[in-house]
Structure formats: C-alpha cells, structure tokens
C-alpha cells in the first residue's frame, strides 16, 4: 500500500517535472524559432555572467531561459488595477494553468517498467475514461482566461476574455469530434490502450499509427489545438493591434508569467495529444516488448531488456512531442492572423461539419469492418 503511494507520487512528480521543463524550454524554442524564420540569431545574450562566451563555450540560452527568466518575472511588481476583482484577478492565471497541467496526469509516456516482480505503468494516473477526462479538463480551462479578462476591470481585457472563451468553446467542438473519431476507431476511451493498439505493423513495415486510420482527425486536432492555445493565426484574444494584450492586458510579473506558461503548456498538451492519438504515443517503430523486429526479408531482431525498451519509449514520446511543438512554433511565425469572423467561420462552418462527417464515416467503417 505504502509503496504504491510512493510509486504514484514519483510518477506524478516525474511527469510534472518533464512537462514543466518542456514548457519552460518552449519560450527559448519560440525565440530561437522566430529568429530562424526572421533570419537573425535571437536570444544571443543568454550567457551566464558572460562566462560561457569568455571561455569559448556555446551560449547557455536554454538554461538561462529556465532559470533567469522565471526569477526575473516572479520578482517584478505584481500590479492589480483599481476597481478590479482582487480575488478573481489573482486566481484567474492559476485557474488557466491548473487544468492544463493536470491533463498530463493521464498521459501515458511509456508502456510498462518492470522492477523486480513489480510492473509499473508509465502513466501518472491510470484512468479508464481518460479521453473524457481530457475533454472535461479542457472545458474547465476556459474559466481562467475568461475571468482574467473580466476581473481586470478593463474593456480590452474583457473583450479579450470574451473572444478567448468564445474561441475556445467553439474549437472545443472540433477537438471533441476529432478525439471522438479516434475513440470510435479504437473502441476505447483509455489512452494507454489506444497507444498499445498502435503497436505492430501493417504490410510488414508500416507502423500501425493512428494517422493512417484517422488523417482527417489529425488535421482537425492540429487546427483546433492551435486555436485552443490561442496562438497565431488564432491569437485574436490578444490581438495587440486591437486589444492591447487581450485578457492579460492588466497582468504583470508572476501572474502574467503564469498566463504565458499556460499558453506554452497548451502547445505542449496539443503536441502530446497529437502524438498519442496519431503518432503512436510512446511506440517506437518496430520496437516490441522484447526488442526491435526490423522489417525486411530477413527480419533482423535486436533483443533489448525491459528498462531499455521503457527508456526508448519515453524518449520516443518526447521527441515526437517536441517535433509537434516545433511545428506549432513554425506555424506561429509563418501565418498571418485571421479576422474574427473568419475564425468563427472556420470553426463552425469548416471544422465542425468536417468533424461530424468524419465521425459518421468512421462509425460506418467501424461497423462494416469490425462490427465491434
């Protein structure tokens, strides 16, 4: 009993730390990505005390972003405007961040790890209805942004908050339909099972990843996910030319940092979901529980111990996730912003019918093929 609790706590801590670090690193990736696209160096003053550069070492930008930026942000003055709802103003950033972070609790980052006679599932919380949990938690996430805008007692902030929440619940429909199509395909709402079912190969070489079965859902989830994280081209809630900075106009210091972190955490979350549903999650191509079974006429086999398989899986998971994070950064710095009516039109007239159609087709195919 006690050991179970310890294992659970360790798993939760590991997942949380991983997520926080990836999220923190996103800021640096974002700056470097922007620089790459705009043909400049970007974030080039990030050496600690200048030591690194003096000794001819590369910049320590990433580390600096993870350590110095938070220190700077959290020691800034925390300003609450006059007439604001003080309690809600302080609560809102955390209401925004918390749901995103707890979503990661149900994300499987690997299959199983065997230590002695004990089998540990590499998932912080083993919830059977995990897909529903993800949708529920995302739904609650609207409140942080909405209330942040309202509690600031600022017109632009309120408009930003309204835009943000309208956008989020609109695209939640498309997101839900995308996830539902996957759920129908695999016949389960358990994320770990969905990952396991993506193991193995078709035709002897093609990994059974979800993208092959649900390409439309993938597009839906990607677009809706970017809209959900309120980033370009869907960043109207904070459209600086119209709304100053949208719902966090009146935020500064640590609380603003929390809002910013929420955005990045959402980017990571969307990448994680895409990885889970469409790119095999922790599956490594041709890697099975006992090692690699390479395709080909001779079928080379490389045996691996369980811990090596688990480590490879965890690495594969985060590499895939990181890839989609970078893809989102690329999108963010490439595309122009939509108009608000275009945004709503895309959500309701584009993605929603597409998602419904996809779901219906999926259902028919599943009945015709599987008859589950």
């Amino acid at each position, binding site marked *: 009993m006690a050991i179970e609790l310890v294992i659970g706590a360790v798993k939760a801590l590991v997942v949380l730390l991983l997520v926080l670090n990836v999220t923190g690193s996103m800021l640096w990736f974002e700056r470097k990505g922007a620089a790459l696209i705009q043909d400049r160096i970007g974030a080039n003053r990030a050496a600690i005390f200048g030591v690194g550069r003096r000794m001819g070492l590369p910049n320590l930008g990433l580390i600096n972003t993870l350590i110095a930026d938070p220190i700077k942000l959290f020691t800034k003055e925390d300003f609450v405007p006059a007439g604001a709802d003080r309690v809600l103003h302080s609560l809102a950033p955390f209401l925004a961040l918390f749901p995103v972070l707890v979503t990661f609790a149900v994300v499987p980052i690997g299959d199983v790890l065997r230590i002695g006679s004990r089998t540990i599932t590499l998932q912080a919380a083993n919830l059977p*209805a995990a897909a*529903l949990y993800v949708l*529920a938690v995302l*739904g*609650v996430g*609207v409140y942080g942004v909405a209330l942040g805008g*309202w509690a600031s007692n600022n017109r632009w902030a309120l408009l930003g908050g*309204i835009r943000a929440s309208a956008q989020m*619940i609109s695209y939640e429909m498309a997101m839900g339909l995308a996830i539902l199509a996957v759920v129908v395909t695999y016949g389960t709402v358990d994320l770990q099972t969905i990952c396991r079912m993506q193991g193995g190969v078709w035709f002897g070489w093609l990994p059974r990843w979800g993208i092959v079965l649900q390409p439309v859902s993938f597009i839906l989830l990607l677009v809706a996910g970017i809209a959900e994280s309120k980033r370009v081209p869907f960043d109207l809630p904070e459209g600086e030319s119209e709304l100053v900075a949208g719902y966090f106009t009146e935020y500064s210091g640590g609380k603003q940092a929390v809002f910013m972190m929420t955005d990045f955490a959402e980017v990571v979350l969307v990448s994680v979901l895409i990885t889970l549903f469409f790119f095999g999650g922790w599956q490594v191509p041709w890697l099975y529980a006992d090692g690699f079974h390479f395709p080909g006429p001779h079928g080379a086999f490389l045996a691996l111990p369980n811990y090596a398989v688990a480590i490879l899986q965890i690495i594969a998971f985060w590499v895939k996730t990181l890839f989609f994070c970078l893809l989102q950064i690329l999108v963010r710095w490439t595309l122009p912003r939509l108009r608000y009516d275009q945004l709503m039109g895309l959500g309701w007239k584009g993605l929603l019918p597409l998602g419904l159609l996809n779901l219906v087709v999926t259902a028919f195919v599943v009945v015709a093929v599987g008859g589950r």
Partner: protein
Amino acid sequence: MPLWLFAFFAIIAVVSALGVILQRHPVHCLLALALALLDIGALFIGLGAEALGFLQIIIYVGAIMVLFLFVIWLLNLQREGLATERIGLKVIGTLAAAALGAELCALLVHAGPAPAAPLPVDYGSLRSLARLLFANYLVAFEVTSALLLAAMVGAIGLARRIPGTNAVAAPPSDVADRLRSAAG
C-alpha cells in the same frame, strides 16, 4: 466513496450552492454554481458513474455555464440590490421551502436504504451508458435530437435581428436612462 471524501465534497457542494443564492454579483453566483456543478460531477464519479461525471463537467461546466457567463457580460449585469418588494412573501416562501427540505431530509433518512445491489463489471463506463442509450432508450435518444433542434430554432428565432432594421428591438426611450442601473 469513503465517508471523509463524501463529507469533503458535500461541504463544498452546500457551501457553493449557498454561494449561488447569497452572492450579490451575478458573476460570483455563476462561479459558485460552476464549482457546485464540478463538485456534483466529482460525486457522480465517486458513485461509480465515471463517464457521466465527465460528461457533466464537459457539458455543464464547460459549455452551459460559459453561455451564462457570456449573457451576463453581454447584458453587463452589476451587483444586485437586496429585495425590497413583497419581502414578506419571499421570506415565507423560503421558510416553506426550508420546511419542505427538512421534511424531505427527515423522510429520506428515515426511509432506510435498500441494500446496494451488486454492480455489473462495467458499471458507469461509457460503453455501458452508450449501450443503453442506443438500445433500450433509442426513442428517447432520438427525441433529444429533435429537442436540441427545437431549442436551436427557438434561440435563433428569439435572438436574431428584426428584419429590415440594423438594430435589434429599439428600447423604449423612457428606460434608456436606466441602462446604468440595469438589473441593479
């Protein structure tokens, strides 16, 4: 669900429900209600109705309450004054409600529980819920589609612009100056 957990959620539920009816600002009422609904969703899960609990949170907290929030903002509702009219009637009504509640509780406690029946293995799973919806309650399920369509048509019929005018209904001029004290 262990008793201490129930007590925890029950206290949150009652406190937030009281918040709904005691808070003066509509947004605060709404937040209290959202918390109560979230809490009720948690109680569902505690009762084994896992899928339903999440559905409750997705639909109620994630969608319906946000709709309320929009309307409160759209109408720019402010703090509400205390009731001034027919206060006696309202107090009597509330006392009656409280009496009803006391009676209800007394009776329910007195009723004595039937022994909890053994549960099927997949009790409360999405699969079992879906199976019932598409089999035993097929008609009811189909009726909900008509119900939702009717609600959509009704809401659009009520809220769309009056044809030929740019504005929605023009407010009577004598109430225009009451904008400030709207609903206050």
